């Protein structure tokens, strides 16, 4: 397919030869007109098949833009994920505070003088009441966990839909050097973390290994 008509190139060359030393703004506009005329041949000669392909690509890009928009990346990044992180932080703090309260009560009872039964009972009653109150953390924690689970489901639905539409395939490797180092550390030092039921051995099995 010819890029442009040869006659137009000749006109361009002639034009540049004539105006070599004294180029004005109008000359530049004229040059642009000549260049545009020379490209008409290219556009006219463009194959209809190429045009269809370009339209398909444009449609695909538009569809991808829609799917990326449906991911709601900004909402996830700016609102939902930070909020979930804050909820998890609050859960950790609440469990720590409750554990601290339980242990403080237990330590107070263990250290108490039991020689005066009435005073000892009053102390135990008081500390048990504090333990009951501290147990209320579980209700709030349960609600916070439900919010985090909802966020994870929200992300999972959108990412799964996006992966399906894009026919995404997983690639091996790590996104960052830090990610690679963490994975290598986990593997080298056998850092699996707590296991769900059935995922690891229980104490009885361990005991068999240490007769």
């Amino acid at each position, binding site marked *: 397919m010819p890029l442009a008509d040869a006659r137009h190139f000749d006109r361009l060359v002639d034009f540049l030869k004539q105006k070599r030393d004294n180029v004005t703004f109008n000359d530049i506009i004229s040059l642009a007109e000549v260049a545009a005329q020379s490209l008409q041949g290219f556009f006219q000669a463009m194959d209809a098949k190429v045009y269809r392909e370009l339209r398909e690509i444009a449609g695909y890009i538009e569809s991808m833009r829609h799917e990326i928009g449906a991911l709601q990346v900004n909402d996830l990044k700016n609102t939902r994920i930070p909020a979930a992180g804050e909820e998890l932080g609050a859960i950790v703090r609440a469990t*720590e505070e409750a554990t*601290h309260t339980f242990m403080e009560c237990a330590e107070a009872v263990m250290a108490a003088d039991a020689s005066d039964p009435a005073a000892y009972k009053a102390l135990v009653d008081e500390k048990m009441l504090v333990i009951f109150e501290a147990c209320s953390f579980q209700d709030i924690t349960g609600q916070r966990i439900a919010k985090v689970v909802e966020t994870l489901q929200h992300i999972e639905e959108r990412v799964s839909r996006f992966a399906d539409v894009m026919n995404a395939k997983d690639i091996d490797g790590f996104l960052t050097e830090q990610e690679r180092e963490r994975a290598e550390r986990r593997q080298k*030092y*056998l850092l699996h973390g707590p296991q769900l039921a059935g995922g*690891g*051995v229980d104490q009885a*099995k*361990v005991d068999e290994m240490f007769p």
Partner: protein
Amino acid sequence: MAVDVSMPVLVVDDYNTMIRIIRNLLKQLGFEDVDDASDGSAALAKLREKKYGLVISDWNMEPMTGYELLKEVRSDPGLNKTPFIMVTAESKTENVIAAKKAGVNNYIVKPFNAQTLKTKIEAVFAE
């Protein structure tokens, strides 16, 4: 319990609450001289400063894990006889086998109870 409860014990865990739990359980068993460290490297420094009769260590800590601490202790001629109990949430068989191969004296899976800790300490000193 037929164990010398006057010996110093080093508890290694990066979670303060767990250190407090183990301290209280050890206190109930009669141990009074209990120190703590928040990871393997801090523990190693303490072990090289003071002679401990027992190390009770978590596995998953940063920067130095309890597994690395165990291997360091076993490769150090001045420390290699120190009894070492791993107390950890790492409950895969490969972890228990690796710890045993590295020379751990016993292994407790979290969450654990006071009786398990008592039984394991007794078992270590009955060896």
